[in-house]
């Protein structure tokens, strides 16, 4: 079994899987259960000033389901902790004492004045926590009060609050970023400039789940009225991965350690985040959907994967980052064609109809009078749509042309790389 022990910002944990700051880490009871199940760490549910906020006593969650009622996307309007600060601090102190080998991070959300930060952070740090996570991410409720995403959307505020936190804390400071921004880079850069030791991302995305088809109100509602929540779960992973990769591949931000968050459900999702530059990952929705036991698959799935690949966890981290670039640098001389394995084909014809209706008319439906789906190389642009929609794994694959003529363009195949920056159609092209 590969060694999954991780050190993030000098904080050791038995594996790279932390529970994100959220309902699963609301109190000692939950966190105890999580640590018993094997989670590597927990970011305690966000602390705020006393008196504590109040939550609605109606629906806090909504979900998008598959027909099998599998939760694909999830939404919440729960606020930060609604318990007195001292209660949380007492429980955190006890948890850290009982579980010294696990990472315990305090998530905090405070109004934008330095004195408050200077007052609360030392009180919290005194519980023995390993780090702070500054919640600049929650897009609902708290943002109306000038906190959460309202801070995370203004780089100057991020930098300012990060500086206050660094001044008040002696343990590392992680800044949790909101994805509700045009580019994740200015907020990440601001965190770095403010002295943050790391960033964690993504928090949830502004969302309304749907309409109630009977009442024709938004759904869910509290007494007939609803408000946008924060969207998470499997569906948001690609958005999160892009933001993590952007930070990891950009010169100005790549020195920032990243704790990856967003839709991690099984170990493969963790591999995605780690390979794209996250040093550890945080999980919430999957635990809320299946319970803490999913840690078993996360841990031994990742471990088995590393064994198979003969990689250490450290070697995996960032492994895929060099493969992420800008469109303009993609090799325009590279030509692929789809190939359908006729032995695996079940003849559903989906590849044909989507190519015919929405793409390049490059797949037959009949060959010599028989139902048969074959790629027409002279039409195929290599777009991968057929591969994406085929219900049979590996039935359709993409194959590179390495010699001869591309039957679609009539141009000879060149193994020389050539991208948009030098393309003759590019008015801004660089001369070679």
């Amino acid at each position: 079994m590969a060694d999954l022990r991780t050190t993030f910002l000098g904080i050791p944990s038995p594996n790279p899987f932390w529970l994100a700051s959220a309902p699963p880490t609301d109190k000692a009871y939950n966190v105890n259960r999580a640590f018993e199940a094997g989670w590597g760490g927990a970011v305690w549910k966000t602390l705020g000033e006393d008196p504590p906020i109040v939550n609605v006593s109606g629906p806090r969650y909504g979900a998008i389901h598959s027909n099998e009622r599998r939760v694909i996307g999830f939404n919440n309007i729960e606020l930060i902790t609604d318990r007195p600060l001292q209660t949380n601090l007492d429980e955190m102190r006890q948890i850290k004492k009982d579980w010294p080998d696990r990472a315990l991070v305090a998530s905090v959300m405070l109004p934008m004045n330095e004195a408050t930060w200077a007052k609360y952070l030392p009180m919290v740090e005194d519980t023995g926590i390993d780090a702070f996570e500054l919640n600049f991410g929650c897009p609902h409720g708290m943002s109306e009060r000038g906190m959460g995403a309202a801070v995370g959307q203004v780089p100057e505020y991020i930098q300012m609050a990060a500086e206050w936190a660094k001044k008040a804390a002696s343990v590392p400071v992680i800044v949790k970023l909101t994805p509700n921004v045009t580019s994740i880079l200015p907020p990440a850069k601001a965190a770095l400039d403010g002295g943050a030791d790391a960033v964690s991302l993504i928090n949830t995305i502004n969302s309304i789940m749907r309409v109630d088809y009977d009442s024709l109100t938004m759904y869910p509602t509290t007494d007939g009225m609803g408000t946008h929540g924060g969207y998470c779960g499997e569906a948001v992973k690609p958005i999160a991965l892009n933001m993590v990769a952007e930070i990891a591949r950009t010169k100005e931000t790549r020195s920032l350690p990243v704790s990856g968050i967003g839709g991690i459900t099984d170990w493969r999702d963790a591999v995605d985040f780690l390979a794209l530059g996250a040093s550890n990952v945080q999980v919430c929705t999957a635990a809320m959907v299946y319970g803490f036991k999913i840690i078993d698959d996360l841990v031994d799935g990742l471990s088995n994967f590393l064994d198979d690949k003969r990689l250490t966890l450290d070697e995996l981290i960032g492994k895929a980052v060099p493969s992420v670039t800008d469109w303009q640098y993609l090799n325009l001389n590279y030509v692929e064609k789809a190939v359908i394995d006729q032995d695996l084909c079940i003849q559903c014809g989906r590849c044909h109809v989507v190519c015919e209706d929405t793409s390049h008319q490059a797949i037959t439906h009949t060959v010599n009078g028989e139902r048969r789906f074959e790629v027409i190389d002279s039409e195929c642009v290599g777009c991968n749509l057929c591969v994406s929609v085929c219900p049979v794994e590996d039935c359709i694959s993409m194959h590179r042309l390495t010699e001869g003529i591309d039957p679609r363009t009539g141009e000879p195949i060149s193994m020389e790389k050539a991208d948009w920056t030098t393309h003759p159609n590019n008015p801004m092209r660089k001369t070679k």
Partner: protein
Amino acid sequence: MSKSAQQPDIRSNRLDNDEIARNFGELHPPLSRSEALIEADRCYFCYDAPCTTACPTGIDIPGFIQKIRSDNIRGSAHTILRENIMGGMCARVCPTEVLCEEACVRNTHEEKPVEIGLLQRYATDPIFDQETPLFSRAAATGKKVAVVGAGPAGLSCAHRLAMLGHEVVVFNRDDKPGGLNEYGIAAYKTVDDFAQKEVDYILSIGGIELRNGKTLGKDFTVQELRDSYDAVFIGIGLGSTNRIGLDGESLPGVSSAIEYIAEIRQASDLGKLPVGRRVVVIGGGMTAIDIAVQSKRLGAEVVDLVYRRGPEQMGASRYEQDLAKTNGVTIHHWARPVELLGDDHLKTIRFERTALDDSGRLAAQGDRFELTADTVFKAIGQVLDVGLLGNPAGLEFQHDRIVIDAAGRTTLADVWAGGDCVAVGDDLTVTAVQQGKVAAIDIDRRLRGE
């Protein structure tokens, strides 16, 4: 052996009421909403879907399943019923395992097709509770069409004609409409008087006058209809059961499977139906399976089904054959009856073994065996009593069935036909529905002078 022991043992109440109720409850319970959603999710939404091609009525199967997925059940029912107005019955009785479900590409992928039949039932069951009709009638054409027969072919034809704006009179030999849907299908395949509910729904479109108890050849003739209607559709099915052609065929205890199936369907108290202790069924089609299984479920101790050829040649699908076996019916292949023995009641049937000879024809092997039986059911097919049609000049037959073209036209310009009485098709409900529909569309074209 005492004399009484030699008496045929045929009696009612072999099983108690609870057992009967269990045995004649629904064979396939309907899908719950969550089962249906999960099953619907398995549909790949194929292009030019093989299941649709395999459906004799050409239902857009991926289309109706997609609508189940989106909870558009009314739209789903419409997609089904616009092609097959008896989509509800067909969902229950179609041999889907040799039609749509056999064609399902999931068979290639995982050897388990989408349960199309059960999904079709899920989509169509709610229509009976809906107040807004799915179909309406076109502007009246003033044309009048006679439909002979109130089975699947006749009712399908009548419904489509009514939709297209014509007035229809349906002549029905029986007391109740529905034909074999009402009289000829195993009871556990269509419970709760479903056949009549479906007929009521079909007739509710309006413009269809149903005349029960009117027999062709007795109460009226084809020629009379031709004289007083703009067009005539014949969907009279088949009449009498084929004869085995052996001495002893008239012995008490030798019965027609079709007739007894009708008795079972019409019985108000199944327990009161007499059934033999030992039952032998001769034949290899659906009717043979239906009577064999129902005999067993009425309490017959031993049911033997004897077919002259092998399992591959049986008209009953593999699924139906398995159903018989799991119900305790013993199937004997490659044997045919040669003697029906008994003094004043059938007692023994003597069979000879058969095989295919070098030229591929069925031939006796000489080897014989006997089965003791209180009842033997003949399920060796039915024939059309051609005489009923009154032999109008120009009406052609092939193998004693009415010749039609692809549009359902007979060789008479104003007469169309469909269902079991025609020379093409496979004697399935779904095929009869299609033939009725196709004929109606052609009749409409003709009556509009197109």
